[in-house]
């Protein structure tokens, strides 16, 4: 056993350093600017895509890097740690790319994966419905065969769908006539598909939408086979990648807080020499390192094809809690400056906070652990 067994591989270290450098070159001020201008972070997206970082986990024959979810999680962590957390990364390569790579047929993979990998194709994922929340049994968007040809007609409503404003394809979960769930790639400008933005407090490039499907026709070569299993194959990566964003935000916040605490002198010594300031930051560091081990563990299980649901849920809770905790303590460490926009902390607050709610809420994670890990009776 050597140090190399515990550190990231040389390859992963290089990947991390390069991604961090690309994102840090634009950095928190860029992130703040694109959000203020309400435009997508095209420059960052292209810079990552041009170097192949969006497809690190996708098969090489379709333009990917042939690595695993662990490496994609590293990309999300590093961009977040550099002050540029992107939900789009989690959704387009993370969920949609993963589902297509595992369940798409050869034509579908050839059609969509290279674009996802090189950033020319941006995908969104439409699962949540107003009447369903976390309960996928209550999804009602219906896909029935088109009576006038080979294809399907989708009717229903989706809500809190991220990034529809500039997506090229939407992966939609709908119920077939037998009651099973099916996945469809739908062009966002398909006739009969309308959208309405939802105003939120998020300061994040991707906007949120409610989508209305009124007999939206989808060709049958856009049906991704695999149903419920395919959908779940996208949800564990989503949790692990949400954890990676939480860890990245925690790193960003701690680095800023520590730099400030080392410099800022109000009485005779820097404020970081006061335990009331230092100990909460140290607790944050320990939460961060714990969450990192849990997230690596979950990604490792996923990448070898082992059951990863429990580990992914636990990592998601620990890491998104660590993100909120560290960001909150960083704001507190900065005193009044913590809320000054110049210090570039508050701009991540609602994203960090959202990650405790979505893609799966803290409460649903705890229900899962109570039931599956502790063997307690189902409570809902």
């Amino acid at each position: 056993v050597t140090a190399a067994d515990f550190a990231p591989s040389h390859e992963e270290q290089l990947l991390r350093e390069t991604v961090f450098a690309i994102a840090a070159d634009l950095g928190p001020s860029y992130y703040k600017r694109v959000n203020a201008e309400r435009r997508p972070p095209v420059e960052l997206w292209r810079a990552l895509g041009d170097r192949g970082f969006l497809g690190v986990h996708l098969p090489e024959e379709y333009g990917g890097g042939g690595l695993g979810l662990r490496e994609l999680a590293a990309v999300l962590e590093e961009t977040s740690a550099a002050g540029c957390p992107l939900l789009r990364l989690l959704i387009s390569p993370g969920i949609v790319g993963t589902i297509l790579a595992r369940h798409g047929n050869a034509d579908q993979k050839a059609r969509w994966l290279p674009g996802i990998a090189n950033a020319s194709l941006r995908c969104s994922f439409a699962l949540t419905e107003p009447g369903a929340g976390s309960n996928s049994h209550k999804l009602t968007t219906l896909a029935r065969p088109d009576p006038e040809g080979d294809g399907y007609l989708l009717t229903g409503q989706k809500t809190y769908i991220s990034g529809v404003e500039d997506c090229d394809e939407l992966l939609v979960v709908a119920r077939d006539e037998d009651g099973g769930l099916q996945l469809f790639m739908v062009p966002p400008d398909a006739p009969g598909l309308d959208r309405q933005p939802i105003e939120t407090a998020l300061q994040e490039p991707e906007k949120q939408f409610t989508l209305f499907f009124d007999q939206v026709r989808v060709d049958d070569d856009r049906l991704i086979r695999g149903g419920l299993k395919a959908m779940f194959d996208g949800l564990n990566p989503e949790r692990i990648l949400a954890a990676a964003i939480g860890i990245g935000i925690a790193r960003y916040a701690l680095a800023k807080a520590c730099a400030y605490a080392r410099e800022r002198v109000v009485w005779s010594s820097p404020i970081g020499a006061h335990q009331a300031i230092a100990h909460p930051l140290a607790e944050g560091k320990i939460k961060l390192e714990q969450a990192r081990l849990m997230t690596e563990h979950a990604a490792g299980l996923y990448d070898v094809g082992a059951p990863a649901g429990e580990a992914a849920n636990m990592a998601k809770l620990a890491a998104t809690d660590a993100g909120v905790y560290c960001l909150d303590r960083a704001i507190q460490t900065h005193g009044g400056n913590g809320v000054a926009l110049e210090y570039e902390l508050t701009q991540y607050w609602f994203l960090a906070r959202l990650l405790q709610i979505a893609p799966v809420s803290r409460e649903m994670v705890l229900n899962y652990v109570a039931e599956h890990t502790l063997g307690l009776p189902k409570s809902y």
Partner: protein
Amino acid sequence: MRSLSELAAEVEQSGAAGRPALSSLFSQGVVGAILNRHGSPEQRRRWLEPIERGEVQASFAITESDAGTNSHRIKTRAVRDNGGYRLRGQKVFTSGIEHSDIVVVVARTERGLSLFIVDADTVERAEIPTALQMDDRQWTLFFDDVYVDAERLVGSEGDGLKVAFCGMNVERVLTAAVCIGIGLHALAQVTAVSGQAAAHGLAEARIALTGAQLMTRRAAQLYDAGLDRGGEAANMAKLLGSDAGAVALSRAIDVCGFDRLAPYWWTVRTLQIGPVSREMILNFVAERSLGLPRSY
């Protein structure tokens, strides 16, 4: 010689089975590690191998009433005499001496701190009454010119701080392991709960135990590989493990009542304080991991 990873797994198992092997922390853990890394071939043959086999029990005496966590204030002295040393001073909160054959004592010598293997039956002692309900009792030890041969010195004279820290990082890892084990044992007592208020408290505790397990395993692997830089992972594991164990036990008591679980309470609560306090771990992480200025 078992690795720390193996020993930590055994210690966790003992806790999970409801019979926490606390004496392993000091005997096979601290003293075993010290003799393994720093003992002479003769010391290893005479004491380490029997300790490994469980034939010899060892205690570890470092804490003093005026020193607390500050080893620079240790006052027990070992003065050269007649080719050996005479030990004079007092130690507090030494665990389990009543079962022990030897006790490894940290004392001040001419050049810094040094460690000595002392036969337990040569040491005067007085029990410290505590709330702890465990096999090992707590003791004050009195060294009134206790004579030891030179061959009882572990490592070189003056190297004691380095030698002791090797054992203390092991102690931190094993403390985490025993607390995690007790936490798992406590959660296993819960068979039914009503309502998410209780269930979610237990589930949060279970997640914390899982996170602490990963950190403890990592710390043990790093120690086994000789790569635990200054004990960062061991310190983090100790804080996470003892916190998670205490929370799990507390939440399980909320649901199951005190009857079966009360005996573990003061053990776990004490292990949040010793062998190194939460506060000293946070000082360590603030300074070493985050580069913040020293606060004390």
